[in-house]
């Protein structure tokens, strides 16, 4: 391995409390410098440098879908085919690419220029279809735009193909600066009153800051809806170990593309939220674990952190308060399960992203065995408002027990798919209207990301989009990723595509998730291809029923619940395929 790579890896390793954390960054780095793959020799070199056995390094490398063992084409074209993309016609793009390039998915053109792959949700649900080319996204793709992209790549130029996104806000908290030019720049953020909340927090005691957040009842925006202030209260104290704050930016739940709006267009809001939160919980080192596909957003965050440091909002004594905080941006490498907080911690420690047995919970034994708080981007980005304006102001938005603003991402069959910030409890119809209304007739909707039970149009009518109302309707608000499906949608095909995703993403640790997702995938394949029997439908339902509650982490439920709901609620469609 080249000397400068070794030096860079060493400097990365030195930033972490445990050098093993540098394994993923090192693999990313070597892969980038090595034309897109890391073979046996380089892997062994990285393993030795980091200090892990080759077997473990290989286990880590092959766990993450972004790491390659073999060379690919110069341009790796990866088409997202998950549900929102499928609803937006991603298969047309795949078919177009296969035709134009003369290769099938998984193949490389004879000239070595292009490799074509399909991938899971890239969090571009509002701007699907999306093609990821190496580490760049090309969104809102049509066959024409795809041709333009290929023509440019053939000339060796990564083109600029802007894809305007739809957005809107009635709360002006999380998407307040979404349309402001250069809002990622600290000067713009400061001019808009940025970092005032941090200044205010530093004038309060950490306990008072935590109390204010707890009083706001802000519920975790990652999907579980657990009150963030209560979570902070679980932190083990007096352990003699440092406390860490980790921002979960592994936005991978299909249908979800909200966190990237904050990170890409208003990164200082997150940095400020993290600084306040770290102060409140007594953390001097924080991490942003961001999905590997968001490499360019990680660069934006790095720049924001650099600016914040230069302005004294991060560093050894923030604004002279004596409070020290540094933030490390850590790239994932393509693994949905790493959105689960203990899997995220494992991944951040340089391991396979396998969820841990709980208890202990991260607040007691988390990152590097230390008390750790993991919060979602949107949750942390809500903190500056809570501190600046007070919990009472925050609670003026939303409904009882479901306070504050929320970014809803709407995708699928609506005219203006995008991200819209509304108070929790806003009726689904209002959101759909904001997104330009349904194209065609509403058939079904998934309101909380793919892992929640689907609702029929009738069930969804008048649904208030908050945690409790969704539960009452037999679904969950989850991440607020709303996927709208019209009458042209085949639910069995949606179910099959959904289970393929979970089977692909299951970490493989526990029997019901590993074998269950695989078995349900095989059964649904059989059903959708017309080779199934009515007994297969019952078997799918029986398995889903038993998988729920039997797995090591929530991923089992995450596929058992939605598949069960699709089959139960649209059973006639499945039966028609097997009769």
């Amino acid at each position, binding site marked *: 391995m080249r000397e400068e790579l070794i030096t860079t890896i060493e400097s990365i390793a030195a930033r972490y409390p445990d050098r093993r954390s540098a394994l993923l960054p090192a693999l990313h780095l070597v892969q980038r410098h090595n034309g897109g793959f890391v073979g046996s020799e380089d892997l062994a070199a990285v393993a030795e440098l980091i200090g892990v056995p*080759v077997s473990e390094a290989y286990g880590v490398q092959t766990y993450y879908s972004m790491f390659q063992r073999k060379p690919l084409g110069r341009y790796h074209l990866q088409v997202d085919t998950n549900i929102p993309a499928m609803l937006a016609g991603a298969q047309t793009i795949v078919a177009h690419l296969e035709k134009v390039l003369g290769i099938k998915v998984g193949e490389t053109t004879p000239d070595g220029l292009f490799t074509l792959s399909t991938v899971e949700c890239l969090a571009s649900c509002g701007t699907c279809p999306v093609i990821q080319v190496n580490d760049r996204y090309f969104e809102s793709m049509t066959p024409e735009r795809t041709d333009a992209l290929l023509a440019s790549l053939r000339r060796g130029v990564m083109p600029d193909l802007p894809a305007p996104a739809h957005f809107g806000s009635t709360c002006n908290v999380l998407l307040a600066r979404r349309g402001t030019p250069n809002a990622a720049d600290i000067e713009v953020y400061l001019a808009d009153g940025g970092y005032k909340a941090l200044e205010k927090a530093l004038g309060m005691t950490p306990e008072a800051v935590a109390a204010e957040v707890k009083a706001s009842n802000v519920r975790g925006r990652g999907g579980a809806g657990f009150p963030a202030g209560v979570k902070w209260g679980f932190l083990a104290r007096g352990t003699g170990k440092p406390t860490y704050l980790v921002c979960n930016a592994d936005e991978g739940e299909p249908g979800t593309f909200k966190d990237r709006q904050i990170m890409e267009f208003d990164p200082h809001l997150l940095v400020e939220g993290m600084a306040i939160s770290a102060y409140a919980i007594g953390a001097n080192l924080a991490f942003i674990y961001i999905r590997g596909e968001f490499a360019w957003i990680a660069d934006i965050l790095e720049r924001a952190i650099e600016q914040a440091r230069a302005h004294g909002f991060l560093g050894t004594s923030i604004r002279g308060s004596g409070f020290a905080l540094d933030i490390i941006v850590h790239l994932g490498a393509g*693994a949905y399960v790493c959105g689960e907080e203990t899997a995220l911690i494992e991944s951040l420690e340089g391991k396979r992203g396998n969820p841990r047995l709980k208890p202990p919970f991260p607040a007691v034994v988390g990152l590097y065995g230390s008390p750790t708080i993991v919060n979602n981007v949107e949750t942390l980005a809500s903190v500056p408002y809570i501190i600046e304006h007070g919990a009472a102001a925050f609670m003026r938005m939303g409904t009882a027990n479901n306070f504050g603003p929320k970014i809803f991402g709407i995708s699928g069959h609506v005219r203006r798919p995008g991200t819209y910030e509304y108070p929790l409890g806003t009726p689904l119809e209002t959101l759909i209207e904001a997104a330009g209304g349904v194209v065609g007739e509403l058939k079904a909707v998934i309101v909380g990301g793919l892992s929640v039970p689907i609702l029929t149009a009738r069930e969804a009518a008048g649904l208030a989009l908050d945690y409790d109302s969704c539960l009452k309707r037999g679904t969950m608000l989850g991440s607020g990723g709303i996927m709208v499906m019209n009458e042209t949608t085949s639910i069995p095909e949606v179910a099959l595509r959904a289970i393929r995703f979970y089977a692909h993403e299951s970490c493989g640790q526990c029997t019901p998730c590993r074998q269950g997702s695989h078995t349900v995938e095989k*059964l649904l394949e059989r059903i959708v291809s017309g080779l199934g029997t009515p007994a297969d439908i019952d078997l799918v339902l029986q398995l889903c029923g038993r998988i729920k509650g039997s797995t090591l982490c929530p991923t089992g439920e995450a596929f058992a619940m939605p598949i069960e709901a699709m089959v139960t609620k649209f059973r006639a469609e499945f039966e028609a395929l097997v009769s």
Partner: protein
Amino acid sequence: MHLTIDGRVVDAVAGQTVLDAARAAGIYIPALCYHPKTGKAGRCRACVVEVDGLRGLKESCALPVKDGMVVHTATPKVMETRRMVVDLLLAEGHHNCISCQANSSCELQDMVYHLGVERPSFLIESEPTPQDLSSPGIMREADKCIHCGRCVEACQNGVVNEVLAFAYRGSHARVVCDDDLPMGDSTCVQCGECVQVCPVGALVLRQPREQKIRPHETTATRITCPYCGVGCQIDLHTRDNRYVFAMAHENQWERQPNKAMLCIKGRFGLDFVDSPDRLRTPLVRRDGELVEASWDEALDLVAERLKAAKEQHGADSIGFFTSAKVSNEENYALGRFARAVIGTNNIDHCARL
């Protein structure tokens, strides 16, 4: 403290898990991934139980006992889950006790037997994976692997040979050697610890397989390994008084010098006991040829020659070389013989080589 398991009041001590307490009381809970030596893993989901006052299913292997706890090991939800675990593990059709080397020594088989499962509820298509026969001592059958992780934990953190690891993900996840090399080409040192902890027939010893002898056909005799001074406790499996294979003796493993681990010599090197090349009588060289002799004949000759050598060249012309394969007492006796009888300090031991 006491807890109630399936209506029976059971003694337990702090620090035990529900699984420990149940097993100590003779209550069967299947546990495919938990092994006392590799600890809890939470992978198999076979050991789940229900506990009054706790929501949902709990892994009994990871659940600490509490005084007054009321545990149910056979509720409909528990039995459904166990049945599902078995069905999912059998669905690909790779487990066949009829031809499996682990037949009668398989924890999955035990679980299936306890559940009374006659056949898997359903089957799904699956491509067979070839056996890995590259290693001289160990045969690997990936299709029979139930992903319990015991071998990985044992290899990485027990014997710390760091060869086995999980690679890939989901249903493609599998145990690999180094960066997915055949075991025989990897850095594996053939300690066989992975076989020792494997609950099924995914990792088996080749010695019994090649002799076509399965575990239930052998008699285990606890011996102390004759190779070095550690004193490893071995279950020597024999049939018709002939060596078949060796496994570490696991009873009270924590109190043994080897903690139920073996090295390549104890694991695979004991077949010499039946070797036709072994000496069965002393050999004496006559006219340049080694010929069989009686003990009296041989010992008289040695005594005579030692005496002659000492008289002619002095005691220090004689040296003794003893062995790690004999007992401390025998080594001591030879030491005394060298120093007190012959009068030399020239005595050494093969363990220094």
